[in-house]
């Protein structure tokens, strides 16, 4: 049809500064969802060491847990999971048609609550890692 010029990325994520709450929520939810599936697959893979024997299982888990990176990644996972849950609940409300007017506020609330929970959990998560 028209030989028009493609404005490319400028149209999408190059515009992030102009995104509104609902769009951020969508992007974060997507991102966290993907991380969670990814984790689910790894998680099962790691746990599968159990099939080769009790010690292998215990060693793998405790070996991983003794690594600082793993602990930090766990905090990250917590953040991701908590956000996904909270925003997921927000989305469930939206699906039920409840509180649509405050959809942006509830997104910000999800972010804040995620932050608080994660911060509060850091001691538990990092305990014994050093």
């Amino acid at each position, binding site marked *: 049809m028209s030989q028009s010029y493609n404005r490319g990325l400028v*149209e999408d994520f190059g515009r992030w500064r102009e995104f509104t709450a609902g769009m951020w929520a*969508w992007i974060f939810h997507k991102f966290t969802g993907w991380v969670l599936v990814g984790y689910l697959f790894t998680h099962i893979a790691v746990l599968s060491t159990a099939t080769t024997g009790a010690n292998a299982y215990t060693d793998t888990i405790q070996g991983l847990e003794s690594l600082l990176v793993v602990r930090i990644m766990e905090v990250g996972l917590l953040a991701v999971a908590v956000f996904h849950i909270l925003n997921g609940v927000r989305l469930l409300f939206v699906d039920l*048609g409840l509180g649509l007017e405050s959809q942006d506020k509830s997104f910000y609330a999800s972010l804040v609550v995620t932050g608080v929970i994660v911060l509060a959990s850091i001691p538990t998560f990092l305990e014994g890692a050093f």
Partner: protein
Amino acid sequence: MSTQVPEEKEQSETEQEVNAETEAEISEGASYGDQRRDQRDAQRRQSVSGAPADIEGESFRLKVFRYDPEVEGKMEPRFDDFAVPKQKGMTVLDALIYARDRYDTTLTFRHSCRQAVCGSDALFINGRQRLGCQTQISDLEEPVRVEPLPHQDVVKDLVVDMEHFYDQMHAVEPFFQPEEDPDGDLEEYRQTRENREKIKMSTRCIWCGACMSSCNIAAGDNQYLGPAAINKAYRFAMDEREGENMKEHRLNVMDQEHGVWRCQTQFSCTNVCPKDIPLTEHIQELKREAVKQNLKFW
């Protein structure tokens, strides 16, 4: 992105003289108020004939996206800057008209009603889909950046191709399909006030396409009906005059892969709709209705 001022300056000198003449003649014998108005207009024309810097009083910078597939120098998209004097009540559309009529007559954009009913001038203004005619300059940060609607093919400057949008609007059987006629001559269908109230917001759509442009899903999935078309379907599905069977049919039309299920409740559409139509809410309601209807068959 070039920030040049268009090349009209040489020509505008000759025009200036012609104008000055006609102007002088009109003023003769005019009333006091008219004379004042003439003077003001004459000043206005003087002041803009030169570089933007000449403008007396406050002005602001208007950055406009330019592109023309067949004109040398415009094939590569760029931004042009125009200096526009600030006036009370000035809208983005006024500013564009000013820039076009004073500086560069090749500046192209759609507009008609100037009152937010024709839906011609949905533009991407300072990073948000808005109607040019409905947006006050004083509400915007400067410089005011105006671009064509994202996610639609650009035909030229600020004009985008609306065909796809129209196709989606036409795809939802956007016309009244009652099951039976009201009995009697000149009899109307009866509709309760509540029902009319329920569909009221959905009937206000002016087909501007702002919502569609703001929706990332619509951008990714070309077949997605998009918020405006779904809202159109909502308007009929919820209209009690059409009857229950028709409603079922309407829901079936919506209940398809590229129908309501594509919506990820981004709310961008609801945010940008110049007619304040609660689009996300309508889409969600249709999803629930569709699920309910499907469960009934189970």
